[in-house]
């Protein structure tokens, strides 16, 4: 260990290092040890081993922070900071990755595109997310973002035989590259103003200036465009429905929760860090964006017949709700964003898992009508889907209610009554289109005789997400405490 790579550096980097190492090892083993396609289930096991090592690293950091009573460990001369915030988001990424990995085997077999690279890409994407949540340096954050995005571009186009998948990957790549350009432009202005890439230095330089300084306005505008694209907020949401629909369903599930959670971690780091003193500039801007996002997401979802598209629009509207917490900006609001991201991860993953189960040999199972009669054929799946949809709509006693409750509470505490009213009205719209799916499930007839594609992994994943969605709703205390400690600074 030289002076440029100290033990602290290693300690903080360990989880990401494990992910990258296991990713490389999967590529190698897929080629050397498992040339027979039937052996690919070992790759899932191997990925889980990697996640165990990553989780162990995170757990050691967690206990180190608690036992020493410190808020954060910085490493790499301020490039990485492991604090409660980064840990909280990294646990979310880890759970989402594990859930997606264990359901993918069966799905990719049915699609006929089962390749070992898929598992490596999942791990590398999670590695990028680690840097997005823990990075405190503009360059590190940007590279983390590209690391994650590049994996997703490839995974969205993983079904090479299908035109929708190719089209989705192409659109996502072009628009993603374009938005990264905006973000890089904003970062270059931040560097130009402060002369440093460390977030703390940028924050100090921005605080010394007037928030209406043209340079700061330009930095806020360009950075916001880049970040809002990544969380698919209106008017930068156009890519989401196409990418979500064309991608393999397991990738859609991963993209809609993990990528969004990581982008929100990134957004919070930037807006609560360097840009926190420019709040008068971006607060009205974000409020307009949040209203537009909820409007577009909810109204467009009403007329969708494809479930993946419908859930894509619903996930756009959820991004709008999460932004509301940032606009309120007080403790309750930020806490609400953290809780919302956590809850959204479980319920949205669950909803997409049911769609994964609908995909069988020769049946796409992507239309709302394809769910018809599900209640009578597989009541277990139908009940779980009902729980997820109730939660997405925000009805107690499910977890979704809790997320929305804290967001609205913070808006009322800070006097943003109009936003609270608009948000509540759109909940009613959301209930309408979620219940279209429910209605379809309870129709008694016309269900294809082919049984749902189940596997041990899928049942396990559905059980975990379903249980968490209910448990967080009914007994929220430990989860709320977790979210609260994540924001302790």
């Amino acid at each position, binding site marked *: 260990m030289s002076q440029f790579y100290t033990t602290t550096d290693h300690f903080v980097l360990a989880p990401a290092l494990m992910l990258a190492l296991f990713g*490389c090892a999967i590529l190698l083993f897929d080629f050397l040890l498992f040339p027979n396609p039937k052996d690919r289930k070992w790759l899932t096991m191997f990925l889980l081993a990697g996640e165990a090592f990553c989780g162990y690293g995170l757990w050691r950091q967690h206990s180190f922070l608690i036992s020493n009573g410190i808020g954060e460990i910085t490493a*790499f001369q301020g*490039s990485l900071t492991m604090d409660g915030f980064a840990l909280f988001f990294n646990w979310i990424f880890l759970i989402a990755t594990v859930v997606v990995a264990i359901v993918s085997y069966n799905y990719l077999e049915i699609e006929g595109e089962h390749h070992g690279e898929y598992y490596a*890409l999942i791990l590398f994407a999670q590695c990028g997310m680690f840097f997005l949540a823990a990075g405190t340096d503009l360059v590190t954050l940007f*590279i983390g973002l590209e690391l994650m995005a*590049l994996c997703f*571009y490839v995974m969205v*186009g993983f079904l*090479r035989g299908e035109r929708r998948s190719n089209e989705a990957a192409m659109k996502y790549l072009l628009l993603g590259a374009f938005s990264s350009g905006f973000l890089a432009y904003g970062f270059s202005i931040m560097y130009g103003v402060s002369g440093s890439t460390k977030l703390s230095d940028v924050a100090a330089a921005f605080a010394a200036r007037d928030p209406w300084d043209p340079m700061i306005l330009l930095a806020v505008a360009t950075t916001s465009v880049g970040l809002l694209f990544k969380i698919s907020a209106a008017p930068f949401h156009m890519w989401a429905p196409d990418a979500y629909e064309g991608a393999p369903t397991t990738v859609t599930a991963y993209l809609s929760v993990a990528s969004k959670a990581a982008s929100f971690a990134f957004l919070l780091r930037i807006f609560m860090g360097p840009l926190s003193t420019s709040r008068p500039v971006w607060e009205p801007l974000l409020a307009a964006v949040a209203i537009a996002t909820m409007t577009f997401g909810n109204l467009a979802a009403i007329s969708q017949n494809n479930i993946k598209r419908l859930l894509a629009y619903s996930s756009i509207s959820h991004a709008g709700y999460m932004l509301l917490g940032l606009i309120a900006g007080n403790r309750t609001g930020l806490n609400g964003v953290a809780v919302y991201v956590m809850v959204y991860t479980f319920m949205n993953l669950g909803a997409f898992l049911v769609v994964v189960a609908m995909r069988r040999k020769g049946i796409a199972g992507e239309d709302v009508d394809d769910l018809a009669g599900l209640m009578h054929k597989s009541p277990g799946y139908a009940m779980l889907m009902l729980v997820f949809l109730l939660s997405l709509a925000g009805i107690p006693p499910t977890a979704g209610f809790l997320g929305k409750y804290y967001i609205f509470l913070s808006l009322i505490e800070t006097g943003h009554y109009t936003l609270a009213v608009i948000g509540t009205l759109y909940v009613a719209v959301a209930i309408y289109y979620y219940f279209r799916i429910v209605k379809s499930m309870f129709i008694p007839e016309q269900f294809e005789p082919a049984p749902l594609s189940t596997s041990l992994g899928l049942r396990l994943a559905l059980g975990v997400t379903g249980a968490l969605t209910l448990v967080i709703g009914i007994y929220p205390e430990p989860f709320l405490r977790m979210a609260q400690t994540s924001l302790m600074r």
Partner: protein
Amino acid sequence: MDVILFLAFATIAVVCGVNVVLQTHPISSAVSLIGVMGSLAVLYLLLGAEFIAAAQVIVYAGAIMVLFLFVIMLLNAGEETRRGRSRLVQFLGLPLLVTLLGLFSYLVLRLFPNASHVRFGAFQGGTPAKFGRVLFTEFLLPFEVTSVLILIAILGAIVLARKEIE
């Protein structure tokens, strides 16, 4: 001397940049882009960033643009076909562009009234040695993570473009 060189190469860069858009044949556009890259390299050199200037020539003007040309030739891309433009673009395009540029120059002039910010030759940190030192100390982590990024790019190309052998 510095100012003359700057003005000359800045003009070349802008003219080539406009030419990239105006040319209808992709090869001509790509060659103009090489002109932009080359003159940008000279501007970097004037500011004292030797390493960046060299990298600009080798990586952008050399490697990337050659790859561009290869791809264009392999795809056998022909002349651009002119599609019907909307009237709005025809009449408002140029005035809007001029307004935008005017606004930007006004902003720059107001922000930096006396051009004392740019001093040619005052910057000394652009040598490869100093550059490498910063890269391997302060920016060690992003530098190393970039290698994973490149690995994924290769992996992605293989995944999306391979042929099935089974």
